[in-house]
């Protein structure tokens, strides 16, 4: 059994997340990457508005709390003033793909050297389970009580697919954390994003398909099954783009 | 002593540039100066005007509604502003471009065929400077060293080769009798 300690980049604060929620795993993966790269002292994280709003208490690096949807703009401001630091945002689907779509798309197309951790759980968690931009067709939420009707509510947004079309994006990868093999892949993707930052290679987004047992009304195990059976077919896992934007450092 | 210049014409005629030149002449002559453009969607081709105040005292309103000197380069601006010139004021009119004459007896009107003069002298596009030269002559701000210093300041380094032509245009205006 390997030594399984709390990463240094996580504070000694109890996470407030619901049982079975995958936020905790993703937090840990980000923290492990920061530890492994030994960059905690040079990293600034930006939290969103959403369930992970208080992530500033959980990460041991310097943290900023952004207004709803604006994390990529906040990260841009930090990074432009401090080009040699590592800057990541941690955002949910409502934050990133609804109210903050413009900030996401433009930070991406500018090729900002930041890493975006995008938690897609197909719902607004913190406010109690309303329809998100990523809510699946037919999915029942508080504001789609008869199921998302694409004739009325339109279709889900596929961010990795969209962003992979932009020249400023170095890495767009969709992962999940429902089993050890996928957790390993997710961590590798996050690490690659941070490494691209180190080389000033452009914008990286790692979309993590995540569970929300509370708002889905499922047990944690059922939630993982739903993710496998319903979400992955709609949001296929994989690398949508992996093409460093800039060929030489700082170019 | 306060001179309030109103310059008006089409965008692209160099109205703002001529205004800037007059302001710099004022500045280098040791006066208080202000320069205010009309601004907005009227870039090239639209109507354009510019208020320049040159004064011995600090300047209050930079916006000139009743100029002591009007410099005008198209008919619509002539029609609009000629009546606003202060009594005993002056108007400098590009008579190549402006149709008609003023019947005001309380102001001095100078009809300068500035555009024709510019074209004849290989100074295309410098009718504004010819008119400015005439204006400077008539108000008596004619210290050549000051004017040349102002012109040098107004012409960006990239267009330094235009200095000589601009000075020539200025001189043409100053020497124009009519």
């Amino acid at each position: 059994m390997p030594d399984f300690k709390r990463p240094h980049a996580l504070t000694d604060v109890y996470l407030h997340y619901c049982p079975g929620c995958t936020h905790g795993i993703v937090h840990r993966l980000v923290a492990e990457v920061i530890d492994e790269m030994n960059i905690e002292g040079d990293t600034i994280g930006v939290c969103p508005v959403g369930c992970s709003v208080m992530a500033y208490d959980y990460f041991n690096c310097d943290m900023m709390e952004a207004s709803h949807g604006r994390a990529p703009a906040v990260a841009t401001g930090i990074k432009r003033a401090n080009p040699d630091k590592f800057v990541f945002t941690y955002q949910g689907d409502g934050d990133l793909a609804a109210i903050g779509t413009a900030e996401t798309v433009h930070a991406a197309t500018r090729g900002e050297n930041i890493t975006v951790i995008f938690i897609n759980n197909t719902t607004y968690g913190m406010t109690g389970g309303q329809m998100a931009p990523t809510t699946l067709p037919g999915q029942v939420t508080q504001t789609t009580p008869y199921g998302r009707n694409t004739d009325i509510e339109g279709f889900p947004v596929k961010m990795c697919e969209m962003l992979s079309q932009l020249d400023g994006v170095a890495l767009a990868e969709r992962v999940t954390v429902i089993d050890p093999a996928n957790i390993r892949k997710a961590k590798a993707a996050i690490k690659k994003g941070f490494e691209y930052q180190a080389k000033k290679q452009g914008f990286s987004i790692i979309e993590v398909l995540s569970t929300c047992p509370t708002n889905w009304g499922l047990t944690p195990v059922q939630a993982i099954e739903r993710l496998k059976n319903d979400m992955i077919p709609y949001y296929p896992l994989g690398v949508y783009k992996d093409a460093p934007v800039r060929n030489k450092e700082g170019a | 002593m306060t001179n309030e210049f109103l310059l008006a014409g089409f965008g692209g005629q160099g109205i703002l540039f001529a205004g800037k030149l007059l302001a710099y002449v004022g500045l280098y002559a040791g006066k208080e100066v202000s320069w205010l453009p009309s601004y907005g969607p009227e870039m090239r081709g639209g109507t354009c005007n510019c208020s320049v105040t040159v004064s011995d005292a600090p300047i209050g309103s930079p916006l000139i509604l009743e100029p002591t000197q009007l410099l005008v380069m198209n008919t619509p601006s002539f029609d609009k502003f000629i009546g606003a010139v202060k009594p005993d004021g002056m108007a400098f009119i590009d008579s190549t471009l402006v149709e008609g004459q003023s019947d005001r007896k309380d102001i001095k009107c100078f009809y300068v065929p500035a555009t024709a003069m510019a074209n004849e002298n290989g100074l295309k596009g410098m009718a504004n400077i010819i008119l400015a030269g005439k204006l400077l002559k008539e108000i008596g701000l004619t210290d050549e060293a000051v004017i040349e210093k102002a012109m040098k300041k107004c012409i960006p380094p990239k267009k330094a080769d235009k200095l000589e032509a601009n000075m020539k245009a200025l001189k043409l205006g100053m020497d124009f009798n009519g």
Partner: protein
Amino acid sequence: MAEKSLMKGNEALAEAALRAGCKCFFGYPITPQTEIAAYLSKRMPKVGGVFLQAESEVAAINMVYGCAGSGIRCMTSSSSPGISLKSEGISYIAGADLPCVIIDVMRGGPGLGGIQPSQADYYQITKGVGHGDYNIIVLAPSTVQEMADCVTKAFDLADKYRMPAVVLADGLLGQMMEPVAFDDAEIVMSDASNKPWAANGHKNARKHNIINSLYLQAPELERTIKERYERYAEIEKNEPVGVADYCDDADIVVVAYGSTARLAKSAVDEARKQGIKAGVFRPVTLYPFPKNELNAAVKNAKKVLVVEMSMGQMVDDVKLAINCSKPVDFFGRTGGVIPAPAEILAKIKEMGGNN
């Protein structure tokens, strides 16, 4: 001091920002402030600074939030409708106690309004820029040289009190050229060295810094706000500035700020020539409002006239400041119409100012 040259107010302000060590500018085009962005896009790369045209006003103010949170002097500029968009971000910046400078070159409103000069953002800037209990410092220049001087002061005050500072100008000041001079000092970009609170990487040398405005416990939020208001009390004590001209023996004191103050001054100069005892008082700081200075200026006056390029907004603060101890009349033009000194003089006469 170097030789004076003619600069537009917007350009003078931009140059002064650089000289104040403003390392980053984030903006979005809108008339009549665009020269600020255009000027800085040229100058910033030459002096090691950052110019970034954002995708929106909203993004720009949030870039300012991020940059300011990392302890670096930064600025955004806009005009009235754009400031409305920024207001959410300004609230967050105030709530996180971050210093930054925001420029509002006012135009007519509401809605798209027009692009001509206006002062109809007085309420927006001094009272209502965003949600929550907070104040921001507001400076109102009235000449091109002051556009430059105010931005320097705004950066200093913002840093001193850890809060946003606004330079409130209008299209007239932004677009006009007047002589302006800068000293010959070398441009030095700001860093975070005097900002121990900055989130700029803890270098494993301190506890992590958190930039935040979220307080889920009501008493904790109340305490934070009350501490902030103690700071505001200091500002209200230390920082008000107002300029009085001919007020000592004036029967009628005209109160005006920004470009309107110079129009009022012209009217008052003319009034004095005609033997009318008029004076003019100009608030230079709109927050903190120069209450004591105003009261001193109107002490011997019979009446007060407030002149604004709006339907009357600062007039409320004037009445409050003097506790309605004198009759306060108002004259304003709005929608982009600039009041003529002659109109102001006529109003002074109508109020009984006569020789």
